[in-house]
């Protein structure tokens, strides 16, 4: 197989780049080492579109973040991804923190963040009635928003694939060799393919991939920085109305409490630098740290409504900024390294930037006829009126059968998720696309039904259905 461009890594950045490139008449392949897209940093982060006041003025983080905020609403509309502009607050509990808010305000103004201002207790209580009484004031950023990161990622791949991009899963790039014709041979050990241009979006592994082509620069070195989160039941909805931060530290933006676009409440993260690039485990200490810190913001936060915990890794670099540049040793390779927070917010801008960078290498590219930037909105039975539901079931009976009772997800939606472009192949893939299993019972009831539907639709035995690919099989074997 020979492609013009190979994008390594189907996280939100790689996938949005794939979508950008799908508007040109070139062959693009998006390579993913897991069984699905959005399996790294994209699936486990704060799900925030940051306003953009945190990063150092002039840094790539600052520029792409503020630009990303502008692009995000239209992008989410095109891709039918849940997005809500709810604003964010940074709380201050003492005078030195109040002074720090001023620093953030000045920084934000320099970065070009609109409508930023410092508010006092009255306005703060009006925005967040449940906030700790000890909060003296806050930095109010009305442009901050919440988004569903993995849905954005999935939608981007679906749209890219609909526009001709080839998505290959379970292809972990193990080696890259330059051929005599100037193209590169990418190998997973099992499979091989060729590409003229490579875009490295491998997240926490972006340094490893860069090293494969000789770019073993020290500044690329990724230090995986783990963050753990708690997700609370929808019964906690209303606890906060905005994204509630505390004053940042040198390890990051600290523990936040925020609503999610689906009506849950997310709390986290902590920040711990680790060695292992695949260690997303949660810890007892991490949990205590998060809850203790979160209670400083909202003292009534109750662990009773917790429905799950998860961990994610930030692709942190020593330089503390995104690195988006052409390889120093290879003309036809672009590295996208160190995309940690605010990577999600910046992703649309990064995708644009990488596209322009590629065009500067390739020269002008012919635009594809029939490119469609719009991804059709998936059916969300739960959000429909009864009359809309009635019409839907008339057309397709599978929409009348509820599979996931906690989130009211129908069999029709699960079938759509499996048969979509780049559709779900495993239980977690169904969960991210439809929310079946995301609710308070966490798949206790619908899990076995989803396993059954996957087995039937993919025509594989029940004991080959996995939670998330490879050896993550749900069942061992038939009973005696």
């Amino acid at each position, binding site marked *: 197989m020979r492609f013009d461009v190979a994008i390594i890594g189907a996280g939100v950045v790689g996938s949005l780049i794939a979508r950008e490139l799908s508007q040109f008449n070139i062959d693009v392949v998006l390579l993913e080492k897991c069984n699905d897209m959005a399996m790294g940093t994209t699936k486990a982060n704060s799900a925030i579109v940051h306003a953009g006041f945190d990063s150092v003025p002039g840094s790539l983080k600052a520029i792409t973040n503020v630009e990303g905020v502008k692009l995000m609403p239209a992008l989410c509309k095109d891709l039918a991804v849940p997005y809500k502009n709810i604003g964010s607050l940074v709380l201050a509990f003492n005078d030195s923190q109040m002074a720090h808010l001023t620093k953030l305000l000045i920084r934000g103004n320099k970065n070009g963040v609109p409508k930023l201002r410092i508010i006092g207790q009255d306005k703060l209580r009006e925005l967040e009635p449940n906030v700790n009484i000890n909060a003296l004031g806050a930095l109010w950023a009305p442009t901050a928003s919440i988004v569903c990161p993995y849905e954005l990622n999935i939608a981007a791949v679906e749209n890219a694939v609909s526009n001709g991009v080839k998505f290959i899963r379970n292809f972990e790039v193990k080696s890259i060799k330059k051929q005599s014709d100037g193209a590169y041979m990418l190998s997973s050990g099992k499979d091989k393919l060729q590409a003229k241009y490579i875009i490295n979006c491998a997240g926490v592994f972006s340094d490893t991939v860069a090293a494969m082509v000789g770019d073993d620069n020290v500044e690329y070195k990724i230090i995986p920085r783990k963050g753990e989160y708690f997700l609370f039941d929808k019964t906690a909805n209303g606890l906060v109305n905005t994204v509630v931060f505390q004053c940042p530290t040198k390890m990051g933006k600290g523990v936040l409490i925020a609503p999610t676009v689906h009506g849950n409440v997310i709390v986290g993260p902590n920040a711990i630098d680790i060695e292992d690039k695949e260690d997303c485990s949660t810890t007892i200490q991490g949990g205590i740290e998060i809850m203790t810190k979160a209670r400083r913001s909202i003292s009534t936060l109750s662990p009773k409504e917790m429905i799950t915990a998860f961990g994610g890794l930030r692709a942190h670099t020593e330089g503390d900024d995104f690195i988006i540049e052409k390889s120093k040793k290879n003309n036809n390779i672009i590295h996208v390294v160190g995309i940690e927070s605010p990577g999600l917010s910046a992703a649309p801008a990064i995708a644009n930037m990488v596209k322009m960078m590629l065009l500067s290498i390739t020269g002008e590219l012919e635009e594809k006829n029939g490119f469609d930037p719009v991804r059709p909105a998936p059916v969300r039975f739960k959000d429909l009126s009864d009359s809309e539901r009635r019409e839907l079931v008339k057309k397709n009976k599978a929409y009348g059968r509820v599979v996931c009772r906690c989130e009211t997800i129908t069999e029709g939606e699960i079938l759509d998720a499996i048969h979509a472009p780049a559709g779900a192949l495993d239980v977690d893939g169904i969960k991210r696309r439809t929310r079946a299993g995301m609710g308070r019972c966490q798949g206790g009831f619908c899990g076995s039904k989803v396993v059954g539907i996957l087995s039937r639709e993919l025509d594989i035995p029940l004991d080959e259905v996995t939670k998330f690919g490879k050896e993550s099989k749900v*069942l061992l074997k038939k009973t005696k």
Partner: protein
Amino acid sequence: MLNYDLVVVGGGPAGMAAALKAKECGVNSIIILERAETLGGILEQCIHTGFGLHYFNEELSGPEYAYRFIDLVEQNEIEVKTDTMVLGISADNVVTATNNQEGIISIAAKAIVLAMGCRERPRGSLNIAGTRAAGIMTAGTAQKYVNIDGYLPGKKVVILGSGDIGLIMARRMTLEGAEVKMVLELMPYSGGLTRNIVQCLEDYNIPLKLSCTVIDIHGRERLEGVTIAKVDRNRRPIKGTEEYVACDTLLLSVGLIPENELSAAMGIEIDPVTGGPIVGENRETTHKGVFACGNVLHVHDLVDYVTIESQIAGEGAANYILALEEEAIYVTTKGIDGVRYVVPQRININSDKDVKLYFRVGQTYKNAKIFLENNEEIILSRRRPKLAPGEMEDITIKSEVLRELPVNSELIVRVEV
């Protein structure tokens, strides 16, 4: 819009018993809505025996127990819609449901019986640290895989929680050839029935480790092992007692939660201890004409008790529909000193019936005495050789005693050693 006198939400043992009783009391227009493909509820996957000892004086399997009622539902020509999920109930008792044959259905009801059952607590609500490997599931999910689908989830098993489903699955997985390494229980006593501990663990030499829990989960893709530890009196892991146990499956049997999303959404008052609606002696909730019974009301250990309770709810609903209800003057009930909750939470003293109060204790007791009190006066007391949180208790108050109670007073149930 369809019209029925009685809509029963849930076709498990509770819903069926309530519908049958209402029919017996003279209600003819009844429909049962069941989300699964068949009637029977969770009994369908409970293929072990032990059901019916109290109600039928016979030892039946779950499906056999269910079938006795399914048979009666058919004989009595009670209407049933299976594969039908109730989406909501309006304040004026209109039930909205969906299925894949008719789409959205609206049913106006004179009375409603809520019988949605309960769900298992998942890993997330316990916040067990570690990875997100495959092979971690609730005991009930594993029971469905083994007994309904015919697939074994794994071969080296650790079970966390000694609830009855966990104990039953310890035996079931063993019989299917899996090695059940141990059952861990956070508390210093088991939450399950004594007979299950004997028949499902002791008979198979499966160790029950009390005051122990899982503190870490290992394995990237499929589960590889768990770290267990002893816990202190405050249920905190004790340093130095950690132990690694290799396993490919972790089953959770750590509690059941009544499924009251529908009830709460229609504004029915929920008891924070039981997780179920607050009900009167006829199992009427705080919403007129809406009744609740079975595990949606409070979690039962035996289906026999579910049946008895559901008959009370069925009769209550019938009396409401047929306008036979007495004017309500309530006393409330309350558990103190070791009694965690009492159901029903209130009693109409005009009801003219003896009322059985069901309750659970918060710890184990030996040679304890149960007191029923009103205004600091002891109404009656009963001696119990043994009390355990896993076994539901009851005490009966006579109608003639009830009638004499002061209006709005409180009936207290307490335990004393």
